[in-house]
């Protein structure tokens, strides 16, 4: 039965409909995870077809297979090391030249290949002519025409997969690089061939070419080989930069020779995309339209999410009350009611926001506008040490930091991504607003609006300064170069957006959810023990922590109650308000809480302002910490995010409080 199973890898450039094809073939039988050791998304799916079980792995979309990005390394290592039975390259029929560049590299990996010529409808519509038979002959691989978004050509593609598995009719072809390069390649290959271990593992010609191009990742692969020394000696005498240019050039020369034989292109001067871009990236209109679109996206998110969030909150309060009432012993009721159900509720209240933000993000991405957003904002972002692609994740942070951090995945460069991810928590999310509203409302009367606005600005300023600071200290280096395709505008498919939304939402619930739940249970324990005290009271461990930390926070103008409220705020920042209600003994009555705060002599307008600043900046909530851990894969960076946040918050609140006192407030 073993041979009824076929392992297929999907390779291709970004924006060629690879994900759509993957979704169309596998339907709902998908598994989304990460590639081992890196945060590049790995999607696998299974399709049963004509009695075969076809297992499909969606490789990251890449333009090339060098070691430029993690995506490229992941894609090629999978093909070389996992040796899938067949690699399907999805090629955009309307953009053959650049797509064939990847083909020339895939050929060198000595793998069985099928070309899926996707989006043929677009190419044919605009008047291109494609010569499929000629293409099969020249590339020495089966070519199937597909329109993934409409499901056209899928069965034929699967038929080819099964055929290819059985009769290896095609043997692939490689391109020649001319005498000068070929002789060098041979020279290197000869040395490599002295190591039988390498022969077993890697395609020799590919490896020689990569070494000649100065690929550091491949060089690391041979480090332990017996041939390493001889190779190093050989490469030391070669100007690899020159060869790099020459080899890329020869690939395009080969493509230029192939191209006119397989396609005659109608040269359309002004495409629809161009016309759209004349408006959307216009010198004067570009930025206003961008800002208007983003504002609209936020309005939509809140309009759609708020009713669901309210519903979930109410449902969990109801559940907590009903489950825990009448339950014995009391601690169990409290664990279930205040701890578990409250905690799960805290996890789930973020879900509507996350789902909708991801849905909109996916629409922006699928339409091609996301690339334009980066194009428009890059100049500004570059000035503060970030990349144009960092802007959208930062902006999403105003809604909720959690999806914002997950959205940093679109940033390829590790350092750019890390910086963005670390400064996102300073962007004031929706959950912090209730704190400002309470405190500003109680102490600043008519100026309340201005104070709240100032908090948002402060968050942005701290994020920008932090980015600069990180760039010059622990995450040294310049932002990655901006070399980005501006894909043609397309109508995004609803299906892809829903799938994207679902994948990310589910990932949040599964992975971040467990960390959050753990955090919630810890906080519950702190609030409930030692035995016999009232939940969250002065005698509980949280109360003790409040007293313990109080001296540290005293210079900021906080008493122990505020400190305790801040500890509870770790779960989710809006809880700060609720726990102050508990600590002042007024429950969730906002008027009574405002009155008690104003009446409390230890709380002044200045300490309220200081508390707002501290709440804005101090450590990310548990949910955010959970995704930081998940996305960086490192406890070290998670701890850093926490410590850095607290340090910045302390300093800023100190400046506000002590500065204010010096000024006589």
């Amino acid at each position, binding site marked *: 039965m073993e041979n009824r199973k076929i392992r297929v890898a999907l390779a291709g450039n970004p924006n060629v409909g690879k994900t759509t094809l993957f979704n169309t073939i596998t339907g709902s039988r998908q598994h989304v995870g990460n590639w081992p050791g890196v945060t590049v998304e790995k999607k696998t799916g299974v399709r049963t077809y004509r009695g075969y079980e076809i297992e499909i792995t969606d490789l990251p979309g890449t333009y090339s297979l060098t070691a430029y990005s993690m995506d490229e390394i992941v894609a090629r290592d999978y093909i070389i090391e996992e040796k899938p039975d067949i690699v399907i390259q999805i090629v955009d029929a309307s953009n*053959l030249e650049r797509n064939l560049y990847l083909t020339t590299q895939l050929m060198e990996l000595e793998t069985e290949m099928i070309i899926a010529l996707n989006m043929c409808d677009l190419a044919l519509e605009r008047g291109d002519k494609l010569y499929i038979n000629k293409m099969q002959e020249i590339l020495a691989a089966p070519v199937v025409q597909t329109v993934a978004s409409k499901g056209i050509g899928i069965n034929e593609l699967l038929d080819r997969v099964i055929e290819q598995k059985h009769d290896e009719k095609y043997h692939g072809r490689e391109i020649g690089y001319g005498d000068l390069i070929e002789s060098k390649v041979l020279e290197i290959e000869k040395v490599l061939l002295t190591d039988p271990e390498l022969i077993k593992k890697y395609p020799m010609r590919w490896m020689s070419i990569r070494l000649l191009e100065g690929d550091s990742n491949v060089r690391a692969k041979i480090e332990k080989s017996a041939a390493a020394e001889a190779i190093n000696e050989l490469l030391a005498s070669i100007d690899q930069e020159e060869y790099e*240019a020459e080899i890329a050039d020869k690939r395009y020369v080969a493509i230029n020779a192939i191209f006119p034989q397989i396609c005659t292109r109608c040269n359309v001067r002004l495409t629809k995309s161009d016309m759209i871009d004349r408006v959307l990236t216009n010198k004067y209109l570009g930025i206003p339209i961008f800002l208007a679109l983003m504002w609209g996206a936020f309005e939509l998110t809140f309009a759609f999410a708020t009713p669901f969030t309210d519903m979930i909150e109410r449902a969990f309060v109801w559940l907590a009350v009903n489950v825990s009432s009448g339950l014995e012993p009391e601690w169990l009721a409290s664990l279930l009611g205040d701890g578990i159900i409250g905690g799960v509720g805290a996890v789930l209240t973020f879900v509507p926001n996350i789902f909708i933000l991801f849905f909109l993000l996916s629409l922006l991405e699928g339409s091609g506008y996301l690339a334009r957003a980066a194009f428009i904002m*890059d*100049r500004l972002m570059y000035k503060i040490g970030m990349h144009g692609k960092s802007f959208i994740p930062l902006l999403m942070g105003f809604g909720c930091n959690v999806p914002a951090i997950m959205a940093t995945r679109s940033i390829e460069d590790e350092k750019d991504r890390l910086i963005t991810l670390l400064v996102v928590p300073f962007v004031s999310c929706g959950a912090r607003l209730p704190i400002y509203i309470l405190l500003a409302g109680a102490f600043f009367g008519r100026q309340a609006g201005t104070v709240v606005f100032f908090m948002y600005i402060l968050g942005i300023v701290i994020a920008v300064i932090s980015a600069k600071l990180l760039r010059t200290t622990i995450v040294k280096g310049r932002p990655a*170069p*901006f070399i980005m395709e501006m894909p043609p505008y397309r109508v995004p498919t609803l299906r892809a957006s829903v799938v994207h939304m679902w994948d990310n939402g589910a990932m949040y619930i599964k992975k971040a959810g467990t960390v959050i739940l753990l955090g919630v249970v810890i906080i519950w324990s702190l609030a409930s023990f030692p035995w016999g005290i009232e939940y969250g009271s002065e005698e509980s461990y949280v109360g003790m922590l409040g007293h313990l930390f109080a001296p540290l926070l005293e210079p900021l103008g906080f008493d122990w109650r505020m400190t305790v409220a801040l500890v509870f705020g770790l779960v989710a920042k809006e809880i700060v308000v609720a726990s102050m209600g508990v600590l002042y003994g007024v429950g969730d009555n906002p008027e009574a809480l405002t009155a008690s705060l104003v009446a409390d002599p230890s709380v002044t307008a200045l300490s309220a302002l200081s508390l707002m600043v501290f709440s804005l900046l101090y450590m990310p909530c548990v949910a955010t910490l959970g995704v930081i851990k998940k996305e960086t894969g490192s406890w070290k960076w998670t701890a850093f995010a926490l410590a850095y946040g607290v340090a910045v918050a302390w300093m800023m609140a100190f400046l506000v409080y002590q500065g204010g006192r010096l000024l006589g407030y």
Partner: protein
Amino acid sequence: MTEITLDTLKPGDLARITKVRVKGPARRKLFDMGMVAGSEVELVRKAPLGDPIEFQIKGYHLSIRKEEASQIFVQMIE
């Protein structure tokens, strides 16, 4: 014919790349994206703030920063 750099073109100008002098990882990426000697490039537009710049090359659109564009040498095509 005089050699100029890619960033000095105006929208609609068509040129042929003669030499890519960009260093570091950007060099590799530019090659992969088709910015090799001999390729024809057309400047399509500049971003609203003047940088990056969008080009048409090999039948698709590619944006790069001025910084890299100023190290790519071209000859104008009439």
